[in-house]
């Protein structure tokens, strides 16, 4: 089975960033349902605007994922046909950020209470790597997809890829002008 991933059609993106907010709200930092603030705004996809392109960029959930391969602590794993992070194992070494060719990993450090010698210390730091988790814990699936007003975002799985491959093969077969070479 192939890993699933969310990808955008850049031709349809109007750069409005609705998906960023939908993603940030689906992945609350701190208290669930607290209003967003700049400190808690941590979307796992980023709308990139260049001269000729506007498109959200996010994790491709690679089959042979550099982030999984390089993580020294086994914090990144393949689960549910996707690449997921086990946050309690993340030490914040940033190796995955260095390795990821899509810029999809973001390591953050947040204040956290941690038990030490039987007491909860409030000044501890917890590292976390934030990346697209395909909203696997959400009943409705990836929150970004329905929020997009131009429907530029799509969830791609093995079936979608097979269908696309098949139609491209068919188009190529009908368009075989190279036969005239011989």
């Amino acid at each position, binding site marked *: 089975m192939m890993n699933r991933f969310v990808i955008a059609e850049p031709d349809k993106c109007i*750069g*409005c960033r609705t998906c960023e907010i939908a993603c940030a709200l689906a992945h609350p930092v701190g208290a669930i349902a607290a209003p967003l603030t700049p400190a808690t705004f941590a979307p796992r996809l980023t709308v990139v605007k260049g001269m000729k392109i506007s498109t959200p960029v996010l994790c491709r959930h690679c089959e042979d994922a550099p982030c999984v391969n390089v993580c020294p602590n086994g914090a990144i794993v393949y689960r549910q046909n996707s690449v997921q992070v086990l946050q309690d194992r993340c030490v914040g070494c940033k190796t995955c950020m260095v390795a990821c060719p899509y810029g999809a990993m973001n390591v953050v450090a947040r204040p956290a209470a941690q038990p030490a010698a039987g007491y909860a210390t409030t000044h501890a730091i917890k590292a976390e790597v934030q990346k697209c988790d395909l909203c696997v814990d959400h009943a409705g699936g990836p929150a970004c997809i329905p929020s997009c007003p131009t429907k530029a975002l799509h969830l791609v799985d093995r079936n979608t890829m097979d269908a696309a491959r098949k139609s491209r093969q068919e188009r190529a077969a009908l368009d075989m002008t190279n036969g005239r070479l011989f």
Partner: protein
Amino acid sequence: MEKVISVCPYCGSGCKLNLLVENGTVVGAEPANGVTNEGELCLKGYFGWDFINDTKLLTPRLKQPMIRRQRGGEFEAVSWDEAISYASSRLQEIKAKHGSDAIMCTGSSRGPGNESNYVMQKFARAVIGTNNIDCCARVCHGPSVAGLQVTLGNGAMSNSICEIEDSKCILVFGYNPADSHPIVARRILKAKEKGAKVIVCDPRFIETARLADMWLPLHNGSNMALVNAFANVLIEENLYKQDYVARYTEGFEDYRALVSKYTPEYVETITGLPAQQIREAMRVYAAAPSATILWGMGVTQWGQAVDVVKGLSGLALLTGNLGRPNVGVGPVRGQNNVQGACDVGMLPNQFPGYQHVSDEAASAKFAKAWGVPELSKRVGFSLTDVPHVVQEGKLKAYYIFGEDPAQTEPDLETMRQAFEKLEFIIVQDIFMTKTAMFADVILPATSWGEHDGVYSSADRGFQRFYKAAEPKGNVKPDWEIFSLMATAMGYPMKYRDTREIWDEMIALCPLYTGATYDKLAGLGYVQWPCPTEDHPGTPWLYKDNKFDTASGKGLLFAAEWRAPLEQVDAEYPLGLCTVREVGHYSCRSMTGNCSALQTLADEPGYVQIHPDNAAKLGLQDQQLAWIASRRGKVIARVAVNERVNAGTVYMTYQWWIGACNELTIEHLDPISKTPEYKHCAVRVEAIDDQLWAENYVQQEYSQLKARLRHAATV
């Protein structure tokens, strides 16, 4: 959880949504299957509701009537009785001393809805006795209304938002749909998918330019020259429909004579466009079986705006792209109810339903219905007249209803001087705004979500929105406040609900008579004209190519190109053009109080600049910089952006610290009196001490917020 049908309170796309209500509080929004939005929303629709709950992120909700008995003093909280009695007696005094025309009122194109606007203009006309009433259409699509009323007879979009996707050619002129109306941008995408040709005329490489077949990056301020050249090509290359022009239009010979000079070669230096590209664009436009022109503030916010609107309608007339589906002219109205404010008479020259104040029959009809012997036939002041007529001593009192001119007018220093000179200012709003800080009396109103009503979307569509939650605080619906004011001024006025107001209004307006509340129930959508109850409404205007002009023909009109007023020079070497931010709306009193939208973009805002200009000035991306014009100086964050043209910088107008209207010039179109927000001369200066600059922004912003918060919490 309860779901209450509403209409998005931001842009004019008319998106239906459900407000999600839990224990009497609005807790979310989800798209509804409205005619224009088809179950989609943009970020403002999804995340633009929490201001209702008084988040105080930017500025607090107004929760009690307040009076400031002395300028410079503190506000004091008072009862409604006292506020109304004080406000009405002060207005009476001014009316007795200086006459009715010394008082000016505004409409509100946002949350209040058509009913409250109708009652406000009735209050101005029947109770105060003046046509001094205007709304923000003046600073927005006023030129579209003025221009199209002359050439085609109707100032609104000729066709519907949903028809855009079936048009075979879309000419986008001075309009950035992705930032202004994402839900309209969606229709353009769909049109493209269905094979339409898209032509974009804009100095910036806007999102729509990415998908366009042709992008014409004309020089800022060359609109009229380009439109005339378009007409020149259509005529001289014989691309126009001679039969259509002969049968349905007038003025062709004069028009042809004027545009004959504007060959594509002649305008090359004015527009900066190769003649071939101009020709090619018109060949594509003329060849399409159906073509739509969409425009926005890039056409209207210039000293020469009405002429350009008339010119654009000429292109549609020349090619027969009117009077049928999927064609036409589309001034896509900005705010959610700016079309509505105009529809119900928030104009100094027209009663509700676009009936002229100088028309004897119309005047007599309204006078009779409103129970007054006669109504003023003198055309009132426009919004942009205010600073001048105040200085001339003609205007003494200003009743500002749901507008924030201290943020949105050009050259804010001039506006502030006018406020200081006015004898009496009433501000009726839902938020403590920069304008409310000038008020002598503050009347707090219910917000969108807290009252019922009807909005008009950009394409003339009436839609009902419903009350979702009880207001918190001692506030009243706008129409009720006007009724109390009218009664206190000796004109007994009382309405049961918005339906009663609506019924009174549609009975007086033949264009709307058939658009009853029952017909608009739920997701109902009725586009005017709708003269009778069995009439389905009118998605596209000018059936049988019969125009709403006196002669029934469309008028071809051209004018000589005029350059923008303030030329760049050595001291102020860059042009400044004011533009839109997708996640904020207008003065931002609403979106600035929405947690998600405020998180996405906050003070001091950006000045977008081309990399070449930035490099020359030593400006780094994301650094703070000063932007100065002859009228003021503000600080903003630099966004180095390849999509903007060199020579012009771009700022969005909702920021308090990076307030670009401190810089803009008060140069008005002579007909519509719309300011030239799209061009003035500025210089951008790098700041060496960035740490100081960051602190300065934070400090100024906190102080301003604290000042408004303090004023509102007496």
